[in-house]
């Protein structure tokens, strides 16, 4: 009897030992710094202030009077929303086309997906070469060759269009990934749905809207959620393309955070920006999950 009890105690301990490394590492490397950031955000902690004092919400108020940071909030929102919408807008038709009986569909899928596996920094550099206004700039050269030379632009140097050039590169790199998710989702739609729609006299557009589009809800949930979060967090691609410039035209939340935090060493202030970023991501995820899971529920 005693040995049975002892055995049970021993096994209870063993479960905790399995959990311990994850818990310990998570607490030290994740939880503690996250809580610390929240605390920093209410202080004037910087490399110049050796004595840290609490200043309430001052950092949060200052952020909204800081040109660099308001530009960052605006740009990141524009970037995230445009990227998410365009990514699915291109990926869904592409997925439908590549779900058909085309012979080379596997090679085509690979080609479209390929850019996604590379570092966003490297892809950013490749595109800054393509966008170049020098004699070797791929985009301007191509425009001239096809007689559209008047459309040639200073793609990354013109503050009015630089952010759109960045969004273009993100869509170029991310559409294939979304397409793969949609292709996988399409394969789960029962064929009989389309057959009975044809019998009922539905047009191809109607069956796309009512069958394909609604059945794609699960893939759309994951694509738009990762798109929004990834868009708000964008960093290396911007570093490679514009480094936030010209002026603040492509400044994003993370480039601004790195600037205030490590170029200027204003730790408390930069932490406040991180907190705003986290709150933004949480609110957006929550709203999106609410809306999208309602769409998924309709399916059942």
């Amino acid at each position: 009897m005693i040995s049975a009890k002892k055995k049970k105690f021993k096994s209870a301990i063993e479960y905790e030992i399995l959990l311990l490394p994850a818990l310990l590492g998570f607490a030290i490397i994740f939880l503690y710094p996250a809580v610390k950031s929240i605390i920093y955000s209410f202080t004037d902690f910087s490399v110049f202030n050796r004595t840290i004092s609490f200043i309430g919400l001052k950092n949060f108020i200052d952020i909204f009077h800081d040109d660099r940071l308001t530009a960052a909030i605006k740009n990141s929102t524009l970037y995230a929303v445009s990227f998410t919408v365009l990514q699915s807008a291109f990926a869904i038709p592409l997925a439908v086309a590549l779900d058909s009986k085309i012979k080379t569909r596997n090679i085509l899928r690979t080609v479209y997906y390929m850019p996604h596996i590379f570092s966003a920094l490297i892809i950013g550099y490749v595109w800054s070469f393509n966008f170049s206004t020098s004699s070797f700039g791929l985009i301007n050269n191509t425009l001239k060759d096809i007689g559209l030379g008047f459309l040639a632009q200073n793609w990354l140097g013109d503050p009015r269009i630089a952010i759109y050039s960045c969004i273009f590169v993100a869509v170029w790199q991310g559409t294939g990934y979304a397409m793969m998710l949609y292709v996988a989702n399409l394969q789960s739609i029962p064929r009989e749905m389309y057959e009975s729609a044809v019998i009922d006299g539905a047009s191809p557009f109607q069956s796309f809207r009512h069958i394909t589009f609604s059945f794609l809800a699960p893939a759309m949930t994951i694509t738009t959620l990762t798109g929004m979060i990834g868009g708000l967090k964008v960093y290396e691609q911007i570093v490679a393309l514009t480094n936030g410039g010209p002026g603040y035209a492509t400044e994003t939340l993370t480039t601004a955070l790195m600037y205030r935090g490590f170029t200027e060493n204003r730790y408390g202030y930069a932490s406040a920006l991180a907190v705003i970023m986290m709150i933004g991501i949480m609110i957006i995820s929550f709203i999106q999950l609410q809306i999208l899971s309602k769409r998924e529920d309709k399916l059942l």
Partner: protein
Amino acid sequence: MRISHEKYKSRDYIMEIVLWILSLIILIPFYYLAVNTFKSPAHVTHAPMALPGADFSFSSYQEAWSKMNYPRVFINNLIYTGASVVLNLFVSSMAAYALVMKRTRFHRFIYLLFISSIMIPFQMLIIPLMRMFSDFHMMNTYQGVILVYVFTNISFVTFLYYSFVKTIPPQLEEAARMDGATVMQTFWRIYFPLLVPVTVTAGINLVIGFWNDFLVQVLFISKPEMQNITRAVFSNVGQFTTDWSTLLPMFMLSMLPLIVFFFFMQKYIVKGLVAGSVKG
């Protein structure tokens, strides 16, 4: 019936041609990058789209190879990625198993904590982590970067394992324990081998993520001999901003290992995308 069949076929052909034309948007930039790495700088400037002619050479690769100290940064990448992926998979799978088997309030709380932390961006950790790492002399160390990789990605992988372990009938565990196996033995000998699909999916995603990482590297690694490939390319761009003839081969050299990895793992990558996203 025959007519409609033929009509369908020709529509397929048109679709295929359209899709190949569209794919040029992806292919041309890669062609453009590759073709200009074998040409002389003057040729790049004058005829960037042209194939290399008499000036075909690997000399810009040789220069890029030595400037970014490729063998060294490649080995660094292997160390960072290899160690982090293996550790992460072990730690996450163990935790997920314990969290499924033990359903006390404490364990449910831990599970919820892990899940909700997926929404906390890494940017929240940057400043305190930098402070911590400089206090504990962890800047410019392998272990520092590896710890960050492992534990900033643990909740997501634990979540993947958790969902999978839950689908295994609990009788399996009970039977193993009846036969006298300890918890550890049950996990390592019976459960861990069953978790291979998740291990492969999560492993591939982690490999690509860690291999390409830049942000953690730029924060914690400044010494050239400790940098990974992406970080080394960044340092070189800073130094030779407009010397594209050296930079383009660097981009190629950084992409090459991923192309090889993709080539061998393609089947699993596609499967993983399906398993990870659409549960049906």
